[in-house]
């Protein structure tokens, strides 16, 4: 029987069929400081053991400061959370990249970077953006803290089989159209609940053309379309990216693994529950205007008129425009921009920084911009960027060059928007208050964010 990629991976992990769900085996468990303390408490309270400690890698990322971290964490409550992760890792004997380790970074950046993410794996993390790892032909899902505890204790998860959706992005993406634009265009098309209950496989020529970094950006945003898992089939790019990374198998095991991984593609005649086709050639640089990632249009677009909508959509549009303080029919290019954030598990990898730096090179941040910051996804991304001189390009232009972490994507540390400020952000969520109470987020690609910093507003990077 012809199988989809999702079904192939799912089937090989089924420990047991239950009444209306399955017990599936988990290969890799990534842990961070925010969603794990209560799970470790549960393990202790019930006197349970951790099933397989070598499947776990921990890293603090949400709370860590991005400035002067050598001096420790100033916020006492954040410090307790990071210290708690440290003590749990010591108590249970877990591998952790601690805050001042060069390998530290955003959990979804370091997993692939270290080769902890491999094709065919089931990967979980108490974080919705775990879908990122699906870029490697893995089944990667975000879970809650109770499920974190469940996986710690049993190495398994109780799940229902997801429906399958194939999104084909056909043709060639035009110059300056990045994975972020493709992701936002898809979400604009199917909506933030369009993928609920599905595992999405991204396919088509435009996806094959993407680098691994681009595929990670795309799968990262699958959750913003409602899908717990996003994935891309394995090809040579996948294998070349992984080769010789610290945690990938070596020698004979590597050869065996490659042979297996090459089968991790959907069979030609595999049936999906839903198939969606998009033409890459029609995608323009995307900018969100509202408080949900589906409230998105292109740089040449306008703020929509809620009065042309009806029912709950009209209500949502009205609420969003009130929060964003934007008028219907305003050109996107007239939205004021106060701050610029380049970072997050969506867009903080080396390629993202390279393409942003390309736009910034020999230019200056506009005077009207209060702050423009670049937060690399990991210590190793930061080092690589510095080796290439990207840090100097950003600093010379007036950007702040920070230390790695989640930073202003969710503003759990000191990096945040003030109420009323508009931010051009390469992150993944434009929810009310996400980047700081009253803050107004516009999701864009790294290139678009870089250009917004230089010109003080959103500009069409294709015309620069």
């Amino acid at each position, binding site marked *: 029987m012809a199988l989809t990629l999702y079904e192939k991976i799912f089937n090989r992990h089924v420990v*047991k069929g239950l*009444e209306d769900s399955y017990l599936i085996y988990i290969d890799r468990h990534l842990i961070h400081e925010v969603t794990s303390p*209560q799970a470790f408490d*549960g393990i202790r309270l019930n006197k349970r053991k951790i099933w*397989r400690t070598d499947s776990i890698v921990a890293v603090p990322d949400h709370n860590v400061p991005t400035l002067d971290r050598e001096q420790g964490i100033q916020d006492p*409550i954040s410090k307790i959370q990071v210290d708690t992760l440290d003590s749990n890792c010591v108590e249970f004997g877990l591998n952790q990249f601690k805050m001042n380790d060069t390998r530290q970074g955003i959990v979804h950046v370091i997993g692939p970077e270290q080769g902890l993410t491999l094709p065919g794996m089931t990967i979980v993390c108490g974080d919705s953006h775990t879908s990122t790892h699906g870029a490697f032909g893995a089944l990667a899902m975000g879970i809650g803290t109770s499920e974190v505890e469940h996986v710690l204790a049993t190495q398994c998860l109780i799940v229902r089989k997801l429906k399958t959706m194939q999104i084909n992005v056909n043709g060639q993406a035009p110059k300056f159209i990045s994975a972020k634009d493709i992701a936002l265009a898809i979400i604009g098309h199917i909506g933030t609940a369009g993928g609920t209950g599905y595992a999405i496989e991204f396919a088509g020529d435009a996806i094959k053309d993407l680098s691994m970094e681009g595929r990670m950006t795309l799968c990262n945003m699958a959750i913003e379309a*409602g899908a717990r898992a996003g994935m891309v089939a394995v090809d040579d790019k996948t294998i070349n990216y992984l080769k010789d990374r610290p945690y990938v198998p070596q020698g004979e095991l590597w050869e065996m693994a490659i042979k297996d991984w090459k089968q991790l593609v959907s069979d030609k005649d595999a049936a999906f529950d839903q198939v969606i086709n998009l033409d890459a050639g029609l995608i323009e640089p995307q900018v969100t205007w509202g408080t949900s990632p589906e409230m998105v249009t292109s740089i040449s677009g306008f703020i929509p008129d809620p009065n042309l909508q009806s029912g709950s959509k009209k209500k949502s549009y009205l609420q969003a425009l009130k929060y964003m303080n934007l008028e219907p029919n305003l050109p996107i290019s007239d939205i004021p921009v106060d701050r610029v954030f380049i970072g997050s598990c969506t867009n903080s990898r080396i390629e993202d920084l390279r393409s942003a730096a390309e736009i910034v090179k020999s230019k200056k941040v506009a005077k009207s911009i209060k702050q423009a910051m670049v937060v690399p996804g990991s210590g190793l991304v930061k080092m690589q960027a510095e080796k290439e001189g990207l840090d100097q390009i950003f600093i010379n232009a007036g950007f702040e060059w920070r230390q790695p972490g989640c930073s202003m994507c969710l*503003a*759990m540390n000191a990096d945040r928007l003030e109420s009323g400020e508009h931010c051009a952000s390469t992150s993944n969520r434009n929810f009310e208050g996400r980047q700081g109470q009253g803050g107004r987020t516009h999701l864009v690609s790294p290139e678009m964010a870089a250009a917004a910093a230089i010109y003080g507003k959103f500009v069409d990077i294709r015309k620069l």
Partner: protein
Amino acid sequence: MEKYKRHSGVVIPLDRANVDTDAIIPKQFLKSIKKTGFGKNLFDEWRYRDHGEPDQDESTRQINHEFVLNQPQYKGGTILLARENFGCGSSREHAPWAILDYGIRTIIAPSFADIFYSNCFKNGILPITLSEELTQNFFEKSLNIAKFSLEIDLQHQKVIDGETSYHFDIDDFKKYCLLEGLDDIGLTLKNENDIQLFESQYKKNYPWLIRE
């Protein structure tokens, strides 16, 4: 986990679509390493006019009287009525912890986000999916009838509105765990042998994935 059998309570209508977990419990409260104490900050940015921080004295907060939780007719409500895609966004289980800590045991909506939906069950909260039409009907009633209440009978999968009752669907296993207040880790560990057996075969098939 507290057993969920029958439950009745005043309905709190939260008339917004795509309510995300950032709105349910803002990030500054996720720094707690406990599971309790989040109720006072449920919907913090909508519920108060000032900025909230953990360990703040509640009596000094500026209440937003327009927000549904602050309206006297919905005080003490235990059933949250919501619109489509409730609980989207982050996987933070602090969201159901905050809902439970506030005293809500049931959420009714036309649809829920996946991760939030499964997080509810782990905490003794019953998320009920009903049609748009029916939720709209309940919205109208809860907005117009003082102390409009519903009764939930989980065993028989019914939402009871006075003389009328409506069926809802739920997984058998999830229902069983809620009814019995069971921790599913204990249940999974009953399969310990199956997991070990699976693991040893798996190690042979994919030796690069499990290294000693």
